[in-house]
Every structure is written in C-alpha cells, then in structure tokens.
C-alpha cells in the first residue's frame, strides 16, 4: 500500500498504486436542481452501449430518486454501513485551497476499513445479487415526509425527494482498479478514463464487489464484467459530427434539462468545469468519504435537508447552495454554457453586457447582467457563443394566431 493524496478528504490515504494523475481528467458537473428525471441520458447510454444480450440489467448511466431509490437497490446505504466506524467526521476548521478545500475527513475510506477489519481484501464491498439489479426505478418520486400534514416550506421542504444522476465516476483512485487481482482495469493517462480490458477480464467480479458506486457490472453472456466507457471514442474526437474535436459523452449531450456539463479537470481556471469544481466549489463530489476521489460533481438540491446532503456531498453543501441561490456574475455566465454545444469546451470568456435586472433573494442582492459567454475548443476556436438572457423575438401581427 502506498500513501496518496486525496484532495476531497484533505489528507493522505492508503491505496495499492502510486499517485499518478492524468494530464487532464474526464470530469463533469451536474446541476441536481434542474433534473426532471426524464431519463433521456439513461436511454442515450442504453441505446448506444448496453442494448445487447446479457446487458439487459445494465444501466451504466441511471437516474435514481433519493431517499428511497437506488440502483442497485440500497447501494449507498450498504456501502456506508461497511465504512461506518462511529467516527466519520469532517474537520472543517482548517482548510487549504489546494490540498483540503473541504476540510479533513477523519473516518475510514473503503481501503482503510478493509485494512482495519482484516478481511484480506483491498477494499470493503459486497456483490449485489441479481434481484438487487432489478427495478432501477424503484422508489422513483417517492417523497420522504417528516410531517404528514405540513405543506412544503422553504428553504428546506418537510416533504422532499430529489433525483441523483449517476454514472461511473472515473475515480482518481478507483475501487474497481484496486480490487482487480489481475490488473485487468486500467486508467488512461491521456484523459483519466477507467476501462475494463475485455480480453484480460476473467469475470472474478472483485470490481463489482469493491466499487462503492456499483458501476462495474457482470455480463452473464460473456462471463466478464463491463462498465461505463465514458464514450471514449467521442471524447477522443473520433465522432465525425465534431470533425476531430473532443465531444461530450452520449449521456451528457442528450440531457434535455441541460443540467450536465462535461469537460476535463485541469489547471486552467478559465476551464468551466475546473472553475466550477476547484475555484468556485459550487459542484461537490458524490460520497467523498468512500475515498476514491470521484470525478463527477454535483450542485446540491436547495430544498433537501442539509444533514442528508452533507452525508452525500461532504461539508461544502451549505456554501454551495448559498452560491447557487444567489449566483455571482461569473457563476451565472459559466452556468449558461451547460449544453450549448456538443463539443467539449476547454476555455470560456465573458464579454460584459448591460445590467438588466436587480432584486433581493433571501436577503441578498442579486444583479443580472446580460453578458455574452463564449466557449472555446481545444484548438482555441470558438465553439459557442451565448447570452445570459434569451433573446426575445416579437412576431409579425399577421402571425399572431399561428402555432
């Protein structure tokens, strides 16, 4: 075991392999506040990669309702129980911008829990039985009610649920990669995408057991395991539509509610995904306490109870929700980039515009400027150009009654 630095946990932790971050890491930001669970992302992935024999139960991308849903059923509850040692605390007094932006987590990661329990495995985990992979929509839209006869209130609803959209997080320290005794899982150096080598896999299902997010899945027909491949041909730029430019994955591009932005996490603060995650900290990782450093980040839902959200996204939740409720000028501009193009945006630029609106939100002043936001591709070419306010067209009087 070597010591690697996990910036989500704000400390070093044990991992079987040396720290080796890719030059740019496949990452995405999801805005939970806008998801309507239309499942278009789920079907986009399904119809591209998992529609075949033996993959009927596989949903590499899925959207589940919290608190009662989960695919596979109760995956997060079961894994959280396995790492629970009674001391899962975040120490948030001392934060470091780069090394521990959320504070320090003093509980056990899945790797540390396995070492403590002496189970002679790389990480704690369990294999969900086939019946747990059924009914991916279980618990959909089922609300958790604290009081039977209260109306919803703000900011936290007493009757609540929200959707969480999940795919393989292409973690920096994947549980699946650590678990495989044959090194059949590898993380690519060029973009950090984690893949299962289909020739090398022998269907041991250690990855299925030890991924805390349960995204590697066993395929009965071929007797080997498969997982989300991050649509790597598109991310490499081999789809003819974008003419050689890296393109966002199927699930990201298909999002009807425009909640997803996929890009690469790198060192450029003008990279929208990097800015949202590292600089603005508006987007938070999913269950960072597992210790795998997942690379899909979420803007938490503003109406759900904070303790539940803090367990799910870490201690940065309160700040993130405050920032989302009253967005700054730059934040609003970056959020406007979501789903405006299929090609991956590597850099953005804001051209300032006139102030068009002003109000108070929850006691804070909010000003709306109609800025123009420009997104650039890898080669510096302009990919998209949009404004904060949607342009309004007024129809000719003779078309008033047209549809």
């Amino acid at each position, binding site marked *: 075991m070597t010591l690697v630095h996990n910036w989500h946990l704000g400390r070093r932790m044990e991992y079987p392999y040396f720290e080796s971050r890719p030059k740019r890491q496949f990452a995405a930001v999801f805005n939970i506040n806008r998801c309507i669970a239309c499942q278009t992302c789920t079907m986009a992935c399904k119809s591209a990669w998992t529609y075949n024999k033996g993959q009927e139960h596989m949903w590499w991308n899925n959207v589940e309702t919290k608190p009662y849903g989960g695919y596979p059923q109760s995956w997060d509850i079961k894994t959280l129980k396995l790492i629970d040692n009674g001391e899962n605390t975040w120490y948030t007094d001392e934060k470091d911008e780069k090394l521990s932006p959320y504070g320090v987590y003093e509980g056990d990661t899945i790797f540390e829990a396995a070492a403590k329990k002496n189970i002679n495995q790389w990480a704690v985990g369990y294999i969900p039985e086939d019946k747990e*992979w059924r009914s991916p929509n279980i618990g959909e839209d089922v609300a958790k009610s604290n009081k039977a006869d209260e109306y919803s209130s703000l900011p936290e609803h007493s009757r609540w649920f929200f959707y969480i959209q999940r795919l393989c997080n292409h973690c920096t320290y994947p549980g699946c990669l650590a678990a495989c005794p044959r090194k059949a899982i590898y993380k690519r150096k060029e973009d950090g995408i984690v893949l299962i080598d289909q020739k090398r896999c022998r269907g041991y299902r250690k990855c299925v057991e030890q991924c805390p997010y349960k995204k590697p899945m066993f395929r009965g027909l071929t007797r*080997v395991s498969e997982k989300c491949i991050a649509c790597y041909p598109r991310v490499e730029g081999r789809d003819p539509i974008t003419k050689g430019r890296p393109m966002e994955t199927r699930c990201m591009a298909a999002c009807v509610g425009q909640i997803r932005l996929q890009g690469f996490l790198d060192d450029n603060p003008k990279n929208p995904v990097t800015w949202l995650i590292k600089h603005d900290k508006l987007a938070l990782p999913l269950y960072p306490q597992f210790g795998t450093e997942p690379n899909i980040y979420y803007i938490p839902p503003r109406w759900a109870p904070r303790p539940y959200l803090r367990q799910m996204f870490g201690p940065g939740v309160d700040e993130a929700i405050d920032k989302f409720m009253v967005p700054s000028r730059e934040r609003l501009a970056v959020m406007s980039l979501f789903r405006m193009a299929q090609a991956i945006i590597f850099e953005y630029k804001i051209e300032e515009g006139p102030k068009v609106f002003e109000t108070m939100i929850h006691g804070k002043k909010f000003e709306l400027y109609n800025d123009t936001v420009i997104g650039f591709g890898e080669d510096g070419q302009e990919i998209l150009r949009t404004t904060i306010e949607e342009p309004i067209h007024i129809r000719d009087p003779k078309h008033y009654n047209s549809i």
Partner: protein
Amino acid sequence: MNKRFSLFKVLSIPLLGAVFLSATLFAAEEPAPGVKGMSDEEFTPTKEVLEVKYVQMDKPYHMDVESLKGSFNDAKPVNITLQKQDKAFPNGGGSVTSSEVKAVHDGITVYFQITWKDPTRNARTIAVQEFRDAVALMFPLGAVEITPAEHFSPRMGDREKPTNLWHWKADWEADLLVKGELEDVEVQYPNMHDDFNFNPYSAYYHRELITSVEVLSGGRAANNLLSQPGRGRTVEDLNAEGFGTLTTQDHQDVNGCSHYEDGVWTVIMYRSLITQDPHDVQLVPGGNTFFNMAIWNGGEQDRNGQKNISTQWHPATLEKVAWQ
C-alpha cells in the same frame, strides 16, 4: 595517531551508512503490498510421489468418466491436502480440505483423475452472484529443481519461472451440452423478455440487431476465451509467472470430462504427452516433473485467489512405456 583518527572521523559516516545499507538490503526481501512472505517449507516438495502409470488402453468412443474409470485401476492415488489461500489479496477458500489424484498414460495421452468432496454443484456463472466449481493443475514449464535453495514458488510460479496450468471449469462442461456451445442468459432466467426474444417480426427483420451481438459483446469481440461459443473443450490451457499474471494460451491443448454424484466431483484432464506448443509442459515417459493443485468451490464464492490450494509442489514420475 592523529592522522589516523581524523581519517576514521571522515570515513565513519559513510562506513556506518554502508553497514546500515547492507543490513537493510539483507533483510529487505519485501514482498509486494497485499502479499505475505513464504516459509522454507513451501519451497520443499512433498515426499509422496505421484506415479503416472503406463497402461495400455483402448481410447473410448465417448471420453467420459465412466468409460475411463477402468483405466485408473492400477494407478496409485495420492492424497493432496488443501487449505485456504492466505498469501495474496484477495484471501479466501478453505472449504475443501483434501483431494485425491491418480494419473495414467498410454504413451500418447496422459490422464489425471482428481476427486474431491463438494456438497454443492455449481456449474453456471451467468447470475452475478454465482461462481463456478473448478480445479486446476499447475506444472513448472521445463525441467526444474525445487529446493529451499532453488526457490520455485508453489503459488502461481515466479518471475522468470513460468508454469503451465490446466484449469477445468464446471460451467464449460455445461456449455458443451447446449446448442451454440455457450449457455445463454435464458438458461438462468427462462422467462426473460428482451428485444431479441419478444418480438413478432422475423429474424431477418432484426438481422442487424442479432448480428450485433458478436460485435458488441466486449469479451467475444476481444477474443476472450471465456466468452467464446464453441470452445470444444472443458479445460483451459494457461501460463502464469506469479500472482496476477495468469494468461490464456493462444493454442489450447488440454481437454477434460467430469462427473458429479453424491457430493463428489470426479474430473479427468487429458492431454497429449508431447505437444507442439512451447508454452506447454512436456511430459516424457521415464521422466519426472512436479505439479500443484487448486480447487474452487463455487458455492463459497471461490474464484481467482479465493481458492483451496496445496502449499507445496508434489513430485510426479512417468512410467516408461513397456514395449511388447
């Protein structure tokens, strides 16, 4: 006197460093993470020798355990003690504690018969939580001397010390019996509905979908032997050079048959004594070799390192062919 003292002062630090360095190098035979070190006993082969008897036999029309049973009458059985695998992650096994092996050859083919007790018969790995029963024999590739002085790990071989493994699988046996020689998902879930089954249109209408199975089955398209239909055999031929290096051979040479009754598995693995494959162990009548064994109990979720192993090499000698 002073000069010598000052020289000593100058040299003392590097001298001390050299002492510590050599001490560390001597002590540091550190195994990789997740792997524990091994004792001298493991590098000593067992005393009991498996004698591969020469018998004259008519190769039966059907190669099955029943027909071959008679050929093993003169072979002396060797008892192999098995224990849980506890050196390399993931640890596991321990449910099968012994097995019996007999071997014969007829100058052309060698037959190894292995029997062991297993209360459950696990011959399918289609559901995610089901694992197969399996047994494997491991031979060192080439002629070797195995003593505590000449380390040859009885666990998956070592770097630069390759081994040849014959891995029989219960589900490969079941695969041979179905049309297409690969059990499809329907045998596990007989009433399942999917685009391939529940449609009123003809196969021709769905031809692109049906032919896509070949291309979009990752394992099949990557030529992973585990995913292929039509393997025509129940034993896999592999090589290994240490933990995590197990690799299927390009050319498969071993076959086998099995029988399960009353909680006892009987597996016969057979192969030509000499093969053309340089990655195969060559067995010569009159010569000797070593072998080791591992057994997987699917009912206990045994797979990969979670297996029941013997921790020492077992010597084997092949009887010379008696020319009539």
